[in-house]
């Protein structure tokens, strides 16, 4: 049992405070670099932790993760380029608010919603890690399959004016996800003898290609001047705004908790799902996609919640639910720490440092986030031709770090062209990204389930978790379609009357 004196000892007799702030700063900077995901930011710092005290090393990695989740939203809002996978949903309304000259406000909402999500996530981490361990054990392949289907159900309301085009985009995303080694038999698919394709297409390459490169291509030759104002500052939301955002933040926290607990969920799925749900429950759903404050609050609360709650299955059973938690698992193993109940018994100082360090990072996030921003804004305000050159160089430099292969760069450029053509033909790209992110999990868990049942499809209705998740997916789809139908009908009636 941790006492007040243990915490005081950590704060005064160990370098936990500077370690937490250093990790947070590193995380924000890394997360803000397009193409460098939270996991890469953590992986880059991992070798430096080798000689550190294990408790400090794990706290540092956790704080990097927290920082990267916020850092990813900075370029998402300022240059329509998500710094991390999980900030992709923030692009939608964050960039719209930026275009309306409200970048400071968007960043403030992102920061505070992130703090709310992180605090909630940390509280859940401290409360649920041990008691909920049985749930993660109960997950079966059927449950994973249902989880993936639930993530894909978001597509129904992400398709813009045409559900057919949204579905086509998602199917192409699922096709991209089939490239590489087959998850069951191990044979290669669609690799065309290219060694770089054996491990599949990295989702981050797809995201950078479809978001960042497509945007750069679309802006090419533009003479429009996009000055953000000499001194863009984060405008932290007041009480009134926080009250207005509480519903969307609560949705983000709840779905972040849910996705963090379920292996394979991750921040991206939580962010997209909470964006979708925030729109569904909003009093002003028509503002979504056009610069809605709630459209930023929900995904940012969600992905920051996941940064803490994803540690629950990791610390309880050693199940990494995302790339970032896999890096953290690597950090634990590197220091000879085995996750599980014995970690709590034998190394309580590691757990205490993790919790207290995370809390310090979350609180310091408000100050550090404000201080770091001017450097980011200065970059955005450079003349457009130079900015385009620097952004392209940054994207290509970051992508190279994934596998040290020029192939990823060529692939991202090709996907940039694809995104540009999709934009011309009015196809949404978000369903494609969801397809790429979830494709592997859906296919592998579906097939594993059928292998277990000997081809009997009843296995999906025999698992209560799977039934619940599939039911929720069906509910989302029907609800979205009904809503689209109602809106279309209302528009038609209005046209008839006018």
């Amino acid at each position, binding site marked *: 049992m941790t006492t007040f004196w243990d915490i005081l000892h950590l704060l005064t007799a160990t370098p936990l405070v500077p370690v937490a702030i250093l990790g947070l700063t590193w995380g924000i900077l890394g997360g803000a670099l397009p193409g460098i995901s939270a996991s890469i930011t953590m992986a880059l710092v991992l070798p430096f932790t080798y000689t550190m005290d294990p408790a400090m090393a794990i706290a540092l990695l956790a704080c990097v993760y927290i920082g990267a989740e916020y850092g990813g939203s900075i370029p998402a809002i300022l240059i329509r380029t998500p710094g991390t996978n999980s900030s992709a949903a923030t692009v939608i309304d964050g960039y719209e608010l930026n275009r309306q000259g409200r970048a400071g406000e968007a960043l403030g909402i992102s920061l505070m919603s992130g703090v709310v999500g992180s605090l909630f996530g940390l509280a859940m981490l401290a409360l649920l890690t041990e008691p909920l361990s049985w749930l993660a054990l109960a997950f079966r392949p059927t449950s994973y399959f249902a989880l993936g289907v639930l993530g894909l159900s978001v597509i129904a309301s992400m398709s813009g004016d045409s559900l057919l085009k949204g579905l086509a985009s998602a199917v192409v995303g699922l096709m991209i996800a089939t490239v590489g080694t087959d998850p069951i038999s191990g044979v290669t698919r669609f690799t065309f003898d290219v060694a770089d394709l054996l491990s599949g297409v990295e989702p981050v390459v797809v995201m950078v290609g479809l978001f960042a490169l497509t945007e750069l*291509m679309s802006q090419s030759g*533009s003479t429009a001047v996009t000055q953000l104002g000499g001194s863009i500052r984060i405008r932290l939301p007041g009480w009134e705004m926080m009250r207005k955002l509480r519903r969307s933040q609560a949705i983000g926290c709840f779905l972040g908790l849910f996705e963090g607990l379920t292996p394979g969920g991750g921040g991206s799925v939580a962010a997209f799902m909470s964006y979708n749900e925030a729109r569904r429950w909003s009093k002003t759903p028509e503002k979504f996609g056009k610069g809605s404050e709630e459209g930023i609050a929900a995904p940012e609360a969600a992905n920051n919640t996941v940064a803490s709650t994803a540690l629950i299955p990791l610390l309880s059973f050693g199940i990494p639910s995302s790339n970032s938690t896999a890096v953290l698992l690597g950090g634990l193993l590197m220091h000879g720490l085995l996750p599980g109940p014995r970690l709590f018994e034998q190394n309580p100082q590691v757990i205490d440092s993790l919790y207290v360090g995370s809390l310090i990072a979350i609180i310091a996030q408000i100050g550090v986030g404000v201080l770091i921003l001017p450097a980011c804004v200065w970059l955005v305000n450079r003349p457009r031709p130079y900015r385009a*050159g620097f952004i392209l*160089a940054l994207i290509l430099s970051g992508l190279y770090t994934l596998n040290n292969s020029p192939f990823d760069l060529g692939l991202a450029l090709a996907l940039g062209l694809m995104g540009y053509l999709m934009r011309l033909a009015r196809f949404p790209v978000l369903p494609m990204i969801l397809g790429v992110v979830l494709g592997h999990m859906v296919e592998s868990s579906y097939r594993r389930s059928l292998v277990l049942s000997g081809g009997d499809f009843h296995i999906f209705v025999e698992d209560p978790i799977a039934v619940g998740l599939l039911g929720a997916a069906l509910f989302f789809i029907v609800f979205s379609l009904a809503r689209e139908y109602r809106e279309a009908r209302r528009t038609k009636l209005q046209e008839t009357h006018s």
Partner: protein
Amino acid sequence: MKQDFLSGGVLVALAAAYYAASGSIAESTLSDEIGATGLPRLLAMLLALIGVALIARTAFVALSARRARVPAEAPAEEEEGAPLPRAIGLLLIGGAYVVLLPFIGYFLAVALLIAGVALYEGAARSWVVPAAALGGATLYWAIFVKLLGVHQPAGTLFQGWLL
């Protein structure tokens, strides 16, 4: 209207190519009932179906409009963004970076990339362009190679002395 018709056709063609490519997936003795080709073939059929549906919907709207003797749809809003050739030009500069990177190394490739994109995007031809290019290359080299210790190609042409 024409755009959706064309898009539907492209989807059907893509589905056919993907289905055909799935034929080259090897059979494995470890395979399950569905097999490595199961999902790809299902996806190919689904995409073809969506493509056909898109074509059919477009044709239906066009026919209905013709019968009603009204324009099939309101004139499309002008697309935002650069025209295709302009956008592809930027892509080609990126492609040149990818090709040159292993030969001339990271530092020089980044400098050329920044200068190339800046000039292509309309920067005035002055000393600022090479200064920004060299400054940018130095900054990125310092961050990625020196600070973060990330491997970047040294280049074969100059034996890596520029890195």
